[in-house]
Every structure is written in structure tokens, then in C-alpha cells.
């Protein structure tokens, strides 16, 4: 496998694309199979993608996202572009696909994405899918449900959605197209060696509560009381104050859904509070779930990043699809870290990417983005590898060969 990584902090999209592509191409010996690009939102434009394509000199499938901050071997940058060029070894197959209007028809869009990805994969054993979306897919769980309808309930899917900032909308990159309200995906198959690590580091606080009434991502009652009371009682504040502090509360104190056999609770961020006292979360919260209020600190957050990186590194060698040797192994890591972590860590945000690099080693190319909603399968046997939408998590995918 050949891996080329390019990085640029140029404020002009054309200059950034030229610089990053030039650097990424330096390590590429043969033709390029796939390009993955993450950029800050300020430089996202068709110019950026056209310049990458022109600089590559050939049409290469490209997928990517723009967001608030990018992650690379250089650390975290709120302005810039990171570009990963890949040439896969023989026996590895992949297909890319795009689907639009995801928010309006989340389940259907998921199914459509699955169908498109499967195109041409009849005789090839499927390995892993990765899905990107711009902004927030409100009914993200429904999209995954639709996707799993086609790919299979236990098929491993990873990916993330980029958060919009208060000022700028994030964008989805697919080939030369810049779009919004869409999803782009890759389906790998054949002898692909990959491993995943996902953790969040938030800890439960107080006594367990039961979701007594909910529908998908809308929770009506907790402990037979309007859902909003849950937060009002914890924070001793009225409805208006809770709404005002919603962003902060959502980042620092999400709810944790207890999952039998899982090491960590499944976190859910609050999206909004309705005037009737119901709460909408980013991701489904099944009725009858046992939930806890969760709290995160910088220390637990950084420790979780380390555990996720260690887990991904360990798993790469545990069940390889093709023989791999530690010596001379070429690998790259795709890191999706929740924007909530960025907000929690603030000035220590760089420490997280440093920890990942320390664990994976300096020879691992790292590319990533700050996200809002990370996709990864659950580990507990009882869930049979079912993919869930995670919040506040750091997800690390390593592909090596």
C-alpha cells in the first residue's frame, strides 16, 4: 500500500490544494486509487476540489468533509487542508457512492447508500464501510438502520458527520462536487486489514433513571416525569435557563444509555428541548432504557483517546485478513473526534492528537476531523457488532498493509 499525506494551512483554497497535493504526491509511486480530504470550512469550495483533481493530473475518486478543525500529523488546525492519497494492495476492492436529501428521507437515504455501495460487489467479500455526512443528520440512527438493511445488521460501518459552526455550514466532498445535506461513503472489500477503536471517557453520575416514554430520538418522559425535569432537577434551573445553557449542558453533561455488556455507556447529546418538556437527542434513545447523567473531564477524555488508539492498534494484528508484518507495515489512521471533546479540552485539544500519534507511532499517517456524531459498531457479543451512532466519542480507524 502506498500512502501520501499532504497538509497546508494556506488561507486560499487553490494554494492550499496545490500545496497539500504536491506534498501528498511525493510519497506516491504508482497511480492513486483514492483521495480523502478534510479541510476547514473557510476554504471549502469547488475550486479546492478542482485544484486537487488538476494537481493530481487524473480523475481520482475523492471523498471528504469540511469542518471546524482538521487533524493531522501536524496536530490540530482550524485553518487548512489535509489530503490523504492511497494506493491499495492487490486484493483490496472499494466502491464510493453519494446520496442526497438525507434529512428528509433518512431511512430511505441509508438504503440508497447501501445499494450504491454494493454495486459491483457480488463476488467480493465485503470488509468495511465508511460514511461521511455534512452537518447533523438529525435522524442519524434511522439512516444507519436503512444502511444496515442493505449491508447487514452486523456489518462494520464507521464514519462521522461534520458539525456546522455558528457562522459557517460544513460541506461534503464527493469527487469534484461540494454539497450539503448529503452522505458520501466507501465500501471496502477483499483483503483489507483494518481495526477500530472507539471511546468517549464520560463517566456516569448519580442514580440510574428509566426512559419511560420515547420515540426514536425524542424522549418524552424519564421516570414518568417530563424529560426536561431530568435536567432541570440536576441543574436546579427553570426552563428558560436550561434552554440558554443547552449547548454547554449538551457538551459537558450528555445522557448515557446503559448497554448490557458494553464497557462504556452510549452517549446522547441533547439537540433541543421542546416547550412540552420533551427532549430531542442526537441518536435514538429506546423506551425502557436505563440512563444516567454523564460527566466528562479533560483527564478522562484524554485517557479515553489513549485507550481508543491502543485498542485500534492492538486489533490490527489480532485478526488480519491478509498476512501482515509489523516491520515495514504501511498504515494510516482516520480519526474522528467529537467537537464536544474539542470544546471540553479547549487549550489542551492538541494533547489528544499528540496522544494518538504517540500510541500509533510517528510512521502512521494521521488524518481526521472534528465531528458531531461518530459511527462505530458496538463490541458486546449480545449486539453482534451492530453499528450505533455515538456522541462525544473519538473513533480511530487504522488501515494497514
Amino acid at each position, binding site marked *: 500500500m502506498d500512502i501520501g499525506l499532504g497538509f497546508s494551512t494556506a488561507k486560499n483554497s487553490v494554494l492550499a490544494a496545490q500545496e497539500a497535493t504536491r506534498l501528498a504526491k511525493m510519497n506516491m509511486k504508482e497511480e492513486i486509487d483514492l483521495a480523502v480530504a478534510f479541510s476547514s470550512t473557510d476554504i471549502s469550495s469547488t475550486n479546492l476540489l478542482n485544484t486537487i483533481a488538476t494537481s493530481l493530473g487524473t480523475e481520482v475518486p475523492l471523498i471528504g468533509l469540511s469542518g471546524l478543525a482538521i487533524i493531522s500529523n501536524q496536530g490540530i488546525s482550524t485553518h487548512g487542508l489535509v489530503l490523504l492519497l492511497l494506493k491499495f494492495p492487490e486484493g483490496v476492492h472499494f466502491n464510493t457512492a453519494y446520496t442526497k436529501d438525507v434529512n428528509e428521507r433518512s431511512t430511505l437515504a441509508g438504503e440508497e447508500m447501501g445499494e450504491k455501495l454494493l454495486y459491483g460487489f457480488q463476488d467480493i467479500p465485503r470488509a468495511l464501510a465508511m460514511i461521511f455526512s455534512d452537518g447533523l443528520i438529525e435522524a442519524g440512527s434511522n439512516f444507519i438502520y436503512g444502511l444496515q438493511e442493505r449491508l447487514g445488521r452486523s456489518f462494520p460501518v464507521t464514519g462521522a458527520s461534520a458539525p456546522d459552526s455558528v457562522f459557517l455550514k460544513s460541506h461534503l466532498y464527493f469527487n469534484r462536487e461540494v454539497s450539503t445535506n448529503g452522505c458520501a461513503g466507501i465500501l471496502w472489500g477483499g483483503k483489507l486489514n483494518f481495526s477500530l477503536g472507539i471511546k468517549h471517557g464520560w463517566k456516569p453520575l*448519580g442514580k440510574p433513571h428509566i426512559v419511560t416514554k420515547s420515540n426514536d430520538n425524542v424522549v418524552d418522559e424519564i421516570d414518568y416525569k417530563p424529560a426536561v425535569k431530568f435536567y432541570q432537577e*440536576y*441543574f*436546579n434551573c427553570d426552563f428558560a435557563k436550561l434552554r440558554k445553557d443547552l449547548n454547554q449542558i449538551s457538551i459537558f453533561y450528555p445522557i448515557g444509555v446503559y448497554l448490557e455488556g458494553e464497557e462504556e455507556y452510549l452517549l446522547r447529546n441533547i439537540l433541543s428541548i421542546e416547550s412540552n418538556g420533551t427532549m430531542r437527542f442526537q441518536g435514538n434513545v429506546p423506551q425502557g432504557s436505563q440512563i444516567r447523567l454523564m*460527566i466528562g473531564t479533560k483527564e478522562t477524555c484524554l485517557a479515553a483517546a489513549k485507550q481508543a488508539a491502543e485498542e485500534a492498534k492492538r486489533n490490527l494484528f489480532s485478526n488480519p485478513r491478509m498476512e501482515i508484518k509489523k516491520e515495514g507495515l504501511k498504515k494510516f489512521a482516520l480519526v474522528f473526534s467529537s467537537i464536544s471533546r474539542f470544546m471540553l479540552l*479547549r*487549550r489542551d485539544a492538541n494533547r489528544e492528537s499528540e496522544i494518538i500519534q504517540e500510541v500509533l507511532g510517528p510512521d502512521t499517517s494521521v488524518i481526521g476531523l472534528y465531528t458531531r456524531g461518530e459511527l462505530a459498531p458496538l463490541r458486546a457479543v449480545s449486539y453482534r457488532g451492530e453499528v450505533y451512532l455515538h456522541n462525544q466519542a473519538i473513533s480511530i480507524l487504522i488501515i494497514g498493509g
Partner: protein
Amino acid sequence: MVGENTMYLIGLAGLITVVYLSVIIMLKMKKIKALQTEIYKLQRALDETEEQAKLLVRTDMELNKAQEELDKKVTSLYALQKLSRAVSTSLEENQIFKRIEVSYLEELGFEKTLVYLWDEQEKKFRLFINKGYSEEDSVAITDYLNFNTEPYLNFIKSQKALSANSKALDDAKKETIKFKFKVASFVLAPILPKEGSQGFIFAGTENKDAPISEGDEELITILANQLGQALENARLFEKTWRAQQDLEKKVEERTRDLTRALEEVKMISQRKTEFVSSVSHELRTPLTSIKGYAAILLTGKLGELPEEVRLRLDKINRHSDELVQFVNDLLDISRIEAGREAMKQTSEELKKIIDSVSDLLSTQLKEKEIELSYDIADNAGVVFVDSNQIKRVFINLINNAIKFSPPKGKITIKSHKDDKQVQIDISDNGCGIPEHAQGPIFEEFYRVDNQINQQLKGTGLGLTLVKNIVQAHKGKIWVKSQPGIGSTFSFTLPQ
């Protein structure tokens, strides 16, 4: 009987059973009570934990808010430091604004920033920084400002910052500003350089969840002050630079005038030298004839002369000699000035030169019984000079010393090494030279106005010749004198 016994036994067994069951129930009841107590305790502990969790989470939230505010301040201060450094390192007004990077302003927590300065001549606000607005929006805002200049000029005059939180602004005005500048919150801070046009900085955010704090207002005020200071420095620098340029121009002009004047003076001096030289040459021929004829007449070869005629001819002869000497001095001066008189320099013993001059002037010294002594330092005994010319220097200076010294006076010659030259001092205890005359004494035809000069004849060329000869040897000459005490003429010669 058997039936009775059986009934009795059954009754007893029943009683025992009831008693046993009662005991069991009692024991169970006790256990249940104990368990209920435990459950109650556990429930209470759980409730207490929940209450503690609530306290913890509330405290944590407060801490997080404080931390966030602190982080924001640290980041802002860091950004402010970078901004201050950027603006203060430029002394060019336009460069000050160009150095402000958008990322620094974003770090201050504002994604929209405008800087306006008031143009006194045009009577309108001019936009200098636009960060975060489209061209179209900034033009619209500038137009709005220039249609409503008064409140913004008054705000600048007030010298106080305003924000979306200010009580000094009523709600209607705040809403107008928010609407016109397309923001949810804002800070306005005046830019007040002491010189030149003043203005203001507008910093705003569309983020409704990030209201302006007092800290934000202070930060933008500090930035405005820094900008004001930087503008003031740039303007002062420009002013100073312009003044310096003017001064340099004037100095250049004056230097040019002076050079021109100097050239003219040199030309005049050259013409004078040439004139003096040519006149002297012209005078020398008739003088030679006059002196020759007078000498022939005095020999008596052309017939005996009456005593009266001889006396007159003697006078003609003597005056002719004086005139020849005068003309020769003039010619020497003009030759040296014109550089035509090359100095034939060789190493000479100073003592020999002084002895030779002393011999030459022995008659005059004896006449006035003047004592001439000298003190030559060991390392200052040899000079690299044209001995004939330097003898004339000594002759002139010693002659003057004799002339102005009283009978039985003293003349002292001393020499010492001064750097690479030899300094010679010729001192007398004569009448001295008044201070005002010490400067021009070396000028041509200058004669000190004193009794001796009135009685004794002189050309006023001797010291000029001396000066020219010393200068031709790259030396210097000067005089120190006190009237009534004496004079010391000092000059330097190369070794």
C-alpha cells in the same frame, strides 16, 4: 378414648404448629423490618448520592463556565498581544491595518470587525479594516454611517466604549446597530490618536449564545487604544521624518551654497594670488633698475655726488631693498598658496637650524642685549623639513620676538614630541598681543595696533608667510599671548 387422644394430639400438634409458625412469622417480620430498614437506608444513600451528584454537576458547570471564561480571556489576551505586536511594529499608517490578521480577531471572539477613521476634509468615515463582511455589506454599512455621522462622531468625542450591554445606549439604538451591522452582539471602541483623524473599531458576533462580557469590552478598548497609539506613533514618525527630510534638503541647499561660495572664494583667492604674483613680477623689474641705477650713482662713477644727493640716493637704495624684500615675500606667499613652491624636505637637526638663525640675528640680539636660549628634547631634535623655508620661519618669529621684547629681554625656544610631530614653542617676554588680535595676526597685511608697530616699519606679510610655510609642511601654527607678559608662537613640523 383413642379418638379423644388422637384429637388431643392433633390439637396439640396444631397448637405447636401455630406457635411455631407464629414464631417463624415473627422472625420473618423482624427480618423484613430489618430489610426494609436496609432498603430505606440504601434508598436514602442513593438519594443522598443523587443530591451529591446534583451538587457536583452544578459546581462542575460553574467551574466549566469559569474555565471557559478564563480560557477565552487567556486566548483573547494572547490574541491581543499578537495584535498589539503586529500594529506597534509598523510606523506606516496603512501598514498598521494590513498587519491585523483575521485569525487574531477571531481569537478575540468576534468574527466581524470594522475599523473606520473620520476624514476631516471629505467629512466622511473611511473604512480601513473589513474582516468578516462581504464587499456589499461593508459598502452598505459605510453608506449608513455616512448618512448618520453625528451620533458616531459624538460617540468618538465621548471617548468611551459602547457595547450591546451598555446602559448608555437605549434599546432602540442597540437594535439599530445590531440590524445595520448584522450582528447579535457588538462592541464599539473609539480610536483616539492625539494627532490626525480619529475613528472607531467595531467588533461584532452573530453568535447569540456568546453575549458580550465586560472583559470583551475591555479587550476591544485596549485594542482600540493600541491602534490609536500605533497611529499616533506612525503620524509622529511621519512628521519627524518629513521634518528631517526638510532639514536634510535645507542642509543640502546650504551646503551647495557654501560650496559655491567657497569655490568663489577660492577663485577670488587664486585670482588675488595671481594678481599679486603678476604685480610683484612687474614691480621687480623697475625696482631692480631703480636699485641698479641708484647703486651706480652711489659708486660715483658717473661723477661726484653732492652730500645731499648721496643721502637721498642712499635712502632710495635702502627703500628699494625693503621694497624688493616685500615683493619677494609676496611672491613667496603666492607661490606657496598656489602650490607652486615645492618643499624640498629632508631630515634636519633642529639645533643646526636654530644656531644658523641665531648667527644671522646675532647683531639684533646684541643690540638689545636679548638672551636667546633653547631646550630641544632628545626625541624632538630632528625634523623632516625644507631647511631654507623653515629658517625663514625661525627668522621671522625670532625677529618679531626681538622687535617686541624690551632690552635685556629673553627669548626661549623649546621643542617636544607631540604624537608623530615635533612642536616648537618660541616664547618672549615682550609686550604681548591683545586677545582680539591673536586670531587675525596670521592674515595678510594685518598689523597689531601697538606703539612698537607704529614706530617700526613692517609689511604685515611675515606671519602670513610663516603660516603658509608651516602649512606646506602639513603643520599647524598658533599663538598664546598675554599683553604685558609675553607671547608664545607654537608650530608643528613633521619628523
